[in-house]
């Protein structure tokens, strides 16, 4: 994953869109799937996992290995999250 440098981007540069946003996720130890996530200091329970898929790419330089899950939250909202297998961290990202 390409980490954000945090630097102000100049107008003449390309600004990446839809960068992954780190998110705190509670995971079921057995299945590895999210049970709840924390957004703006609020815990939001996952009602069900609607879809799950893997993205493995760029093994020839910085390997990318992600497991995406599309979850339906208990309040009806839909979020797409992924678990970065390289850094063992969770992110939110529209797919």
């Amino acid at each position, binding site marked *: 994953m390409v980490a954000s440098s945090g630097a102000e981007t100049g107008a003449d540069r390309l600004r990446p869109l839809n960068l*992954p946003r780190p998110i705190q996720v509670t995971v079921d130890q057995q299945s590895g799937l999210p049970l709840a996530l924390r957004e703006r200091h609020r815990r939001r329970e996952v009602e069900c996992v609607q879809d799950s*898929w893997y993205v493995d790419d760029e093994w020839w330089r910085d390997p990318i290995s992600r497991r995406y899950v599309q979850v339906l939250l208990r309040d009806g909202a839909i979020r797409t999250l992924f678990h970065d297998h390289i850094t063992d961290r969770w992110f939110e990202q529209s797919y």
Partner: protein
Amino acid sequence: MSIACIVIPHFALRVALLDRPELDGAPLVLGPTRGGRPIVNDATPEAAAHGVRTGLGLREAVALCPEVVILAPHPVRENAAAEQIIVGLEMLSPAVEIDARQPGCFTIDLTGLERRLGPPRLAAERLLATVPALFRPRAGVAPTKFTARVAAYGAAPGTVQVVDPNTIQDFLAPAPISLLPLPPDKHQRLERLGLRTLGDLADLPVAAVQARFGAKGRQAWELARGNDREPVRARLHPETVSESLTLPVPATSRETLLIAITRLVLRAFDRTALRNRHVRQVRLRASLEGGQAWEQVTTLREPGGHKRLIEALGYRVQSMVLPGPVAALTVELSGLIDATSCQELLPGFHSRRPRQLAEASRHLKQRFGTSGLYRVAEVEPWSRLPERRQVLIAYDP
């Protein structure tokens, strides 16, 4: 814990025999797919007795054994045969694993099935009976997966070999090292070192094996000593929808194929199982004139409905090279998920009023040095990584 393994050596050749059973016992060789390199892909023991081996040119094979029969692979038929065998085995055990690296190798967990299937030997015999005899299947039973597999390869066709749990290491020691699940290059390296049997490998110090062959080598060393904790992983049953079509005349033109594919996709989406649902993957199978087959899997970047699917398959059809005229087509859709909607822009937002925007941009530039206006540009719209697909670039009208 008892694990049974059923193996069908030379699986592709045994499947080819289903069409021509009279060839059973003749020296058989599996040739290439149409257009492939003319080499031997597999050979039966009858052909091997004449010196024909995998990798040999077909001309040399015929020179060594003039009565050899060269059969063409038929991946569609092989998949169908494997599926039929698995379905038969799953009638007796819920946990049946198919080895993706070794066609014709099935592992079955017998745990908890004693009351239904009897003791392990009887259970394995019952499993064996579900496989047609023409395949010459053989079975092995052991407490671990790898040992059961070695036992199965060591058994005679139609028989079962049961390994005593107390003698696993002694049983494995004389078995050929080629049975280890390692890539071909690692097998070559093992052979170059003079290691012929599992016992040869097991006798080496683990540190030396790991230093030379890495994690895979360590794993192989453990297997050679009978240490295998891998459970039988029952296959998943993904929901699929498939539609087939026999063409009135074998088709060679892309236009005809596209029309047939469109028809199949629309027929599939008419079914209740696909109502309000999207599809992630499509497997296209073609039966070719002359009995050959062809198969291709297309995975969509994002799940889509019938329009997106037809569009994606259209691109594939334009670039595909079929080895012959297509007699029948099958479309199998998998990765089914509930459809999600995309919000379209309201009509009013489409009018950008470019002149006003250009004016505003000019004012902003004069005041701040930069307008701060950007537009979205697609850079790698095909990328599987969402952050690579689009970027913001400065809006400069």
